[in-house]
């Protein structure tokens, strides 16, 4: 859903008439993807760039409603096991290949092929058992179990539809220049410098809620990678780039006072940004200690000082843009007295020389591996503040700053008590990924998504049912019950929505439309001369 906007960007009707032309320079703070095809792997940086040249079967409109896009329509059988998708017949990929049911089938097969090494897309389509093109525009999917999140899955960039002819190329070639149906196409990719996108002149169909039809206004987009936040912001101020992502809270606050820079806040769907408490081992195998921890840390003070009002506190496992999200503020107040009571009761009553609580000779110490590439500095500072407030309650937190490989390594070895890991998926079904006991079973690489390691049969049952039920009202009830369960079990400490802030030059007009995963699109955007 296009997110609420601050600033006065695309929300207000553009006073001036759009002009065509110009190149938009986008500076991303994310690591450069190793593959521009989001089928391969499947992370958010890929979603950001590929939203410019790939499109999905479904998307979300401004109101947050799921709407067909490359698809025309879709129906599901009464038992929920057969899904029929009708695709549009008037669309061609930028290599000239027409969009057909067969093409979509080829995409799904590509995603499900282990050689592609898709992770996000693969998980989203995991319930498809077989598929068949009934006619040039009709695709029939047979499912192993009913999947009421399938259309939401179809709206994610990681299952975007690419030219089947292009997919037949080697993975190396397809990674370098995927071919889709979007308003732009990949012209070249100079590693470590920029991905160059040019306008798709044959683009006729509008994206959802578009202001105009026909090709995009911009001639081209240069997609750069500038890892240093300060450099990125300086580049925006200097007019070298027009859009930056991963904007730092303090710069967002500074930009608010600056007429020439505007702000787009587009929280990601799926899970909220949270700290998970590893319930599989001591001391968090004791729910009382989990609860004590949650009341020991002062999250609000940290968010206030570090995020400059750009990140409202969350009390829910789900993002604030998820309609089915459930929040309970009362569970998360900062209350050291309560912590003390709980810990004393749980046997952590003694203190050692440094003032930390001890039980049976072991210190109440929590290991917290932090990935330097996944947590922005403000978040790392927040963790340090939590560390400081927890210390006052006699709880030691050991923050280990690790590179991504080592961080995954620590998780795979179950060498953590606290962890913060982002997960983006459209819809509440992300809860199954994060909290279903099936998700504690690691992939061959050792990776698993249920990092709080909740293994609760009641919860599993709720999640299974919510994922297959066809009745919308009941689905909502089930998901809310599931969320209550994990919140009240003190398995997680929600912090705020997954931050997705963009700053852009006021020369840019009509910035604001986003895909279902809140990655911005620039079809309507134009550059004032």
């Amino acid at each position, binding site marked *: 859903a296009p997110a609420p906007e601050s600033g006065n960007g695309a929300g207000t009707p553009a006073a001036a008439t759009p002009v065509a032309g110009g190149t938009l320079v986008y500076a991303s703070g994310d690591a450069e993807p190793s593959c521009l095809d989001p089928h391969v792997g499947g992370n958010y940086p890929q979603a950001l760039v590929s939203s410019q040249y790939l499109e999905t079967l479904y998307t979300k409109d401004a109101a947050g409603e799921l709407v067909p896009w490359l698809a025309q329509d879709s129906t599901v059988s009464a038992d929920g096991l057969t899904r029929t998708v009708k695709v549009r017949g008037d669309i061609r990929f930028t290599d000239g290949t027409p969009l057909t049911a067969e093409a979509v089938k080829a995409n799904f097969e590509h995603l499900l092929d282990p050689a592609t090494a898709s992770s996000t897309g693969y998980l989203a389509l995991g319930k498809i058992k077989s598929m068949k093109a009934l006619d040039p525009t009709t695709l029939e999917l047979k499912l192993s179990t009913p999947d009421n999140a399938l259309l939401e899955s179809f709206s994610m960039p990681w299952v975007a539809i690419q030219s089947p002819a292009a997919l037949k190329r080697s993975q190396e070639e397809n990674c370098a220049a995927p071919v889709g149906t979007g308003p732009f196409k990949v012209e070249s990719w100079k590693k470590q410098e920029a991905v160059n996108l040019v306008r798709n002149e044959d683009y006729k169909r509008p994206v959802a809620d578009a202001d105009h039809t026909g090709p995009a206004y911009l001639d081209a987009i240069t997609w750069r990678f500038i890892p240093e936040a300060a450099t990125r912001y*300086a580049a925006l101020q*200097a007019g070298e780039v027009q859009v930056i992502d991963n904007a730092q809270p303090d710069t967002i606050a500074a930009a608010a006072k600056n007429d020439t820079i505007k702000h787009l806040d587009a929280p990601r769907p799926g899970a909220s940004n949270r700290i998970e408490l590893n319930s599989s081992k001591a001391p968090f195998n004791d729910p009382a200690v989990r609860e004590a921890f949650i009341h020991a840390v002062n999250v609000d003070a940290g968010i206030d000082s570090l995020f400059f009002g750009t990140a409202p506190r969350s009390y829910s496992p789900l993002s604030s843009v998820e309609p089915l999200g459930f929040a309970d503020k009362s569970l998360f107040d900062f209350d050291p007295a309560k912590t003390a009571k709980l810990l004393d009761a749980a046997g952590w009553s003694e203190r050692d020389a440094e003032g930390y609580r001890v039980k049976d000779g072991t210190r109440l110490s929590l290991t917290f591996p932090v990935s330097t590439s996944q947590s922005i500095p403000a978040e790392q500072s927040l963790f340090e503040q939590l560390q400081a407030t927890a210390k006052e309650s006699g709880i030691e937190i050991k923050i280990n700053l690790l590179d991504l490989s080592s961080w995954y*390594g620590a998780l795979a070895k179950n060498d953590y008590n606290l962890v913060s890991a982002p997960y983006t998926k459209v819809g509440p079904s992300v809860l199954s990924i994060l909290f279903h006991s099936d998700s504690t079973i690691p992939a*061959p*690489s050792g990776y698993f998504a249920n990092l709080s390691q909740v293994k609760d049969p009641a919860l599993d049952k709720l999640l299974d049912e919510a994922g297959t039920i066809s009745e919308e009202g009941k689905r909502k009830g089930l998901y809310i019950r599931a969320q209550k369960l994990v919140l009240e079990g003190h398995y997680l400490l929600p912090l705020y929505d997954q931050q997705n802030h963009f700053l852009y030059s006021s020369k840019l007009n009509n910035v604001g439309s986003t895909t279902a995963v809140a990655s911005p699109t620039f079809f309507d955007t134009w550059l004032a001369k």
Partner: protein
Amino acid sequence: MNPGTHTQRRRTRITGAASWVLGKVLGGIFVLWAVATAIFFGIRMIPGDPAEAIMGGPGSQASAEALAAARAEYGLDEPLAVQYFTALRRLATGDLGTSYSLKNPVSEVLGELLPPTLTLAVLALLVAWVLALGLAVASTRSGRAGMALASGLEIVSAAVPHFWLASVLIMLFATALGWLPPVSTATGAGLVLPVATLALPLAGFLGQVMRDTLDAAQRSGFALSARARGESEIGVLLRHSLRHAALPGIALSGWAFGSLLSGAVVVEAIFARPGLGRSLLSAVTARDIPLVTGVALVSAAAYVLIMALSDAAEKLADPRMARA
């Protein structure tokens, strides 16, 4: 002396040069082999499955079959010794393999990344030279206070960490004054800040050495002789002292180049400049063995080459060395 001896002398000089080149080449090959070996075994000791790096990096949920397939494809299922010799055989034929994370041939990746880093390093070296010599000359001609000031400047700039300098320069020249772009471009104004970041600390180092030598040369017997001959101060400087001051600079340049490559890691990251340094950082993080090996080999080769060049330049500039 008779002409026969002349020819003889020339012949020994030529064979001398040939054996020098041969020595350098053999030494270089040895260094490259040792670097490749060290990296090969060193990086395999790092925890983390290379197959996973191939399958999209850490946290990939690649299936067991996919991982096995990747291992087989890259020969990672063979015994280590076999892998090592295969790798060496490939390296010997100039095949650096395919990057795990970029999926491109490493030689291609390096071909793209080497020129910008070289540009940066060479420019920084040149600028450092000019600054160091300029300051040395200015200070020897401006008395005690000037010397002290120059020495202080050199010592401080040699002590400044690259990343700090980069941040300060961006704040000053890009954000506050708006004179220069904060993001590096291949050429032009975008090069100024990164080059300055690398060059200033280096200039401090070079300056300390060069100024000492320049000072010694200015006080030397030959400078006094030249003055006694009626040479002006400028003449003494240009015709005599500067050449002497340049010698230790040349000798240090090989080392300096090595340190510039390390500095490039930081500078390229901050100024978002494509290059070897930046890819080295990400390659180590991603456990991209072929790319790490490639970067290490290229920088080792660059180092060997620069050392040979500075050696040769030293011999050219200083005939005493040529005979040694």
